[in-house]
């Protein structure tokens, strides 16, 4: 599957709308999941071995109790009793140790595996081009990397191995019971079938009941969400009372659904106890009769009572695992689907070398559309020589930003080509291309990190001195030094609010610190205070100094400093020239000039 197959708008994600639960076991998915356990093979083997040990130790104790009673207590052998008690204590302590190691080890394997998978997915997502991010909402990708992975964690750490554990325990119990008395085993365990039956019915009913609960809970939550965020409308139309009444109805639906699940639990627990008691009764009735006749010992009877109690827990657990596996399959399906998707913009097999980039740019008959056939750039050709400064102007939607997106190869052109220093950018590695370009976008993006890291973007090649130098050239050094934590100040911390202008200057310092050959600058339109405005004007000069610069200009002062102005209108280049030439020409530019660049109030 490739990115291209996707439709133009946001892709629907069928799995997220309703809780569609499918199979609890899918061999294909399972095989692929198991592959992630491979690096930890020996630990997995150890965990399974421990599981067997735990199962053996926990099931041997009633057997030892039987020996204690039959061989020592009944025979009044105090020394023998002491010995067997010591053995019992030994198995108990050993089981505790093994159980602890096993539980922790399983968690550890689960966490490691999940960590690997999460990293693989994250790395994979980083490779996609912008087109992919246009179509996949951030929220959905976040869900893949967090919640879906978390579900798998549950499967790895408490699902798979615990299934083994339960099966081994059941096996151990059966082994000891049969070796003591196969007839009594069959009779005592005849109640297992009603138990399994009751459990299956209960799971089914409860699953449906919980689905209703979730449905009404979601409904209640969205009602709350909607009416709290729309509280203004509720108040202004004086609808508090009606809103409350509507809420009460939904709330009560939710309560009713919950009561239903309470009902199933109220029935299920007594039924399980009753079945357990039935098993005990059978042991007393049949086993007791046998014992009276001397066919069974009293110890066997008592150990059977213990075994039949032990038997029920793993059976109930197993049915719980079914649900875990089911959700895990659904999540892994979604994760693998994303992993199977390949990025469309890839590096060439034999990349050309840009070497020491000079910064000559050329667009040759470029056509481009975000959505098929809906061209936002039509037959664009221009040349920018190294060191030249070019301003792009035009109304919103004229195609200015698309030119920048293409130059950075965030998207690929449909027709025509783009060259840097005469080399087609498709022949270059993306990293090499972008390393030579400094991009400052209009919607300022700062990470919730320190100012220093926002300038260097955690690039170790950029030393603290260089960060400071960039900031002082841009003119925000003094401002940063005055902050409580200076360059270490987190930009999104409560209490520290940077103004729009200051935030923009930080992104300027970022571009400067990277010292690119080509500068792409999308000037912010939002107005800033006069002080920042002056700083920004100066900073732009410094940024452009000695670089090939492409600027989407909103400020007259910026335009006037450029060597050339390219006027775009509806995806085409309509006018090219200097400020004076274009004003005299009296076309689109002269109109835009009056509209946007002439002094205005504000």
């Amino acid at each position, binding site marked *: 599957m490739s990115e291209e197959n996707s439709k133009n708008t946001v892709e629907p994600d069928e799995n997220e709308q309703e809780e569609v639960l499918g199979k609890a076991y899918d061999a294909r998915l399972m095989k692929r999941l198991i592959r992630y356990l491979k690096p930890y093979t020996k630990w997995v083997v150890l965990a399974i071995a421990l599981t067997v040990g735990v199962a053996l130790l926990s099931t041997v104790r009633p057997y030892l109790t039987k020996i204690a009673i039959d061989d020592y207590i009944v025979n*009044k052998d105090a020394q023998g009793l002491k010995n067997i008690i010591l053995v019992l204590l030994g198995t108990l302590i050993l089981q*505790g140790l093994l159980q602890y190691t096993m539980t922790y080890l399983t968690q550890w394997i689960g966490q490691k595996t999940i960590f690997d998978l999460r990293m693989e997915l994250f790395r994979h997502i980083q490779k996609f081009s912008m087109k992919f991010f246009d179509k996949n909402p951030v929220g959905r990708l976040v869900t893949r990397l967090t919640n879906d992975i978390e579900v798998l964690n549950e499967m790895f750490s408490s699902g798979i191995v615990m299934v083994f554990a339960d099966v081994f325990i059941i096996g151990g119990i059966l082994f000891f019971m049969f070796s003591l008395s196969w007839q009594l085993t069959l009779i005592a365990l005849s109640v297992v079938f009603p138990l399994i039956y009751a459990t299956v019915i209960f799971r089914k009913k409860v699953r449906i009941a919980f689905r209703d609960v979730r449905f009404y809970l979601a409904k209640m939550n969205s009602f709350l969400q909607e009416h709290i965020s729309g509280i203004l409308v509720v108040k202004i139309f004086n609808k508090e009372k009606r809103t409350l009444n509507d809420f009460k109805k939904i709330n009560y639906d939710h309560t009713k659904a919950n009561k239903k699940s309470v009902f199933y639990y109220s029935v299920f627990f*007594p039924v399980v106890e009753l079945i357990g*008691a039935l098993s005990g009764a059978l042991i007393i009735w049949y086993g007791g009769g046998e014992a009276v006749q001397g066919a069974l010992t*009293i110890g066997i009877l008592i150990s059977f009572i213990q075994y039949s109690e032990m038997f029920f827990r793993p059976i109930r657990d197993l049915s719980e695992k079914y649900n875990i596996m089911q959700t895990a399959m659904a999540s892994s399906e979604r994760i693998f689907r994303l992993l199977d998707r390949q990025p469309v913009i890839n590096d060439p097999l034999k990349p050309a070398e840009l070497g020491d980039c000079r910064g000559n740019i050329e667009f040759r008959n470029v056509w481009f559309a975000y959505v098929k056939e809906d061209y936002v750039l039509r037959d664009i050709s221009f040349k920018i020589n190294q060191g030249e400064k070019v301003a792009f102007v035009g109304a919103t939607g004229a195609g200015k930003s698309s030119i920048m997106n293409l130059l950075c190869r965030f998207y690929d052109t449909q027709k025509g080509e783009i060259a840097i220093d005469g080399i087609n950018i498709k022949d270059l590695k993306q990293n090499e291309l972008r390393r030579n370009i400094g991009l400052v976008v209009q919607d300022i993006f700062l990470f919730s990190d320190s100012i220093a890291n926002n300038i260097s973007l955690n690039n170790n090649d950029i030393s603290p001195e260089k960060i400071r130098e960039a900031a002082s050239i841009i003119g925000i050094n003094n401002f940063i030094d005055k902050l409580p934590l200076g360059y270490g100040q987190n930009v999104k911390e409560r209490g520290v609010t940077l103004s729009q202008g200051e935030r923009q200057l930080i992104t300027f310092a970022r571009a400067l610190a990277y010292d690119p050959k080509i500068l792409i600058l999308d000037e912010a339109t939002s107005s800033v205070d006069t002080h920042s405005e002056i700083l920004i004007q100066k900073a732009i000069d410094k940024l452009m100094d000695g670089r090939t610069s492409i600027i989407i200009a909103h400020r007259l002062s910026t335009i006037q400093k450029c060597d050339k102005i390219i006027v775009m209108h509806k995806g085409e280049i309509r006018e090219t020239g200097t400020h004076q030439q274009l004003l005299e020409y009296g076309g689109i530019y002269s109109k835009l000039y009056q509209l946007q660049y002439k002094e205005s109030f504000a």
Partner: protein
Amino acid sequence: MIHLRRLVPYLKRYRKKLGIGLIVISLSAIFTNLIPFIISKAIDQIKNHTEGTSLLNYALMTVGFALLSGVFLYLTRQMIIVVSREIENDLRNDFFGHILTQDQQYFHFHPTGDVMALATNDISAVRNFLGPGIMYTAETLINFTMAISLMLSFNAELTMIAIIPIPLISYVVYRIGKSINYKFERVQEQFSDLTTKVQENLSGIKVVKAYVREDSETEGFRKMSMDYMKKNLELAKVQSFSYPIMFLLTGFSVIIVLYMGGNKIIEGTLTIGQLTAFIIYLGLLTWPIISLGWIINLTQRAEASMKRLVEVFDSNPAIVDPDILEVDKESLAGAKDPIKGEIEFRNVNFRYHPNYPYVLKNINIRLKAGETIGVIGHTGSGKSTFVNLISRLFDVDEGEIMVDGKNVKNYRISQLRTSIGYVPQETFLFSESIENNIAYAEENFDKEKVIEAAKISQIYKDVENFPRRFDTVLGERGINLSGGQKQRTSIARAIASDPKILILDDAFSAVDTYTEEEILRGLKGIMKDRTTILISHRISTLKNSDRIIVLKDGVIAESGTHEALVQKEGIYADIYFKQLLEDELKDLE
């Protein structure tokens, strides 16, 4: 427990059910505890080969007691757990009801997410305490009393030995539970940090790519994932410990009982049947012992949640109906008359918070009933605040606002607000049918009115094209309207409320100029006898108003008719000129 005491009135409401619940849970526990007693009798009889009650009878008694215990257990859950659900329901209703009375100011400082968390998580925590908390406390107490007294009747010394570890186990469970909670919270925190990191990386992917930072981003993410893994393993350490430690402790008691009991049997002071009963009782007591530690945790969590809820219940809105005693008789009498729509601002100054700058400064203006006024100005110039003060979404600090010559604070809020039709700047529709949205203001609406309002706001044709027409449901589970369609529906809603004062706050921003003109033409007919305030960025919306005011930095900078303002060559004229140019550019091919 101070805050949990606030639940007493709720509990009282269900005292009958709770009472029955406590009785049946005792009965259930009694029968459960009788079963080992029966088994001990049976085993002794088998051992001694004595004649007596037949084994079948013992077996039947076991089943019979289990059945009775089961029925009472069923009733217990149906009483106590159901009551906890009912109280949860009541509490949530009261909570939301109280939230609805809060001022706009409250929502300014309490994001929707926070309020939601209170309504869901915190109330759930309280319910958890009420249901399982009450049920298991009662069960534990009764089980202890029953089991211990029966055990005592067999052998006092052995009972003492058997119950010595109990407080220790409860304490261990409590400590482990507490530690798990703490570590679990750390895991949750790290999880939300991780989520934030992913969110940020993806939102800023363009910057990441432009600066070739994929690798360092991956490294940052790796560190956080690693941290998350470590915190999970910290939690796993405690969690893995909890199960073994519990069965170790309970297993110890069983083994000690077996040893001491075995010796007593050898001495002849105890029977095998009694020993078996002891072992079964210890099994029965395991769960109550464990639940004791667990209940303490539940209670602590519920107390913390209740504290947060009580804070909300104790915060009262400042904007309320006038106190009848304080309003003089004259204005109270007048307040009953229908509002005509005359509005006056007298020296109004307003700011959202004492620490914030003024948003409106010295506003003086009088709108005659039936007048149409246009308001223009930049973002942040105070336009929306200006209209929000009329409907008392906020109260003025200085100066006063009069409607029909009476201070707005002297009207009942409902009377004031039902007289105002409002199209907010941010269109907000409910995920209900289009009809319900338009008729939002009316309980029993007239379909004709809905259609008429839809026609005036130019949404009628769109609606007619939907398969389910006015029954079309909006939002997540229904159809998604375009921005313009939403705005027109919002306008229809205001018109359908048949107000004396109509406020349109930037109501045409997503509507094209042609449709805007159509709507304005339609509105003209109904605006005649209504006071209308039109806020807009676009001259085209305002130019036909009786009067236009230009707000700048919270001050009325210019005021007059369109023609007068254009001639004045001030701010208004500048905006007008630019918009003409913009139109010209748009028409360019």
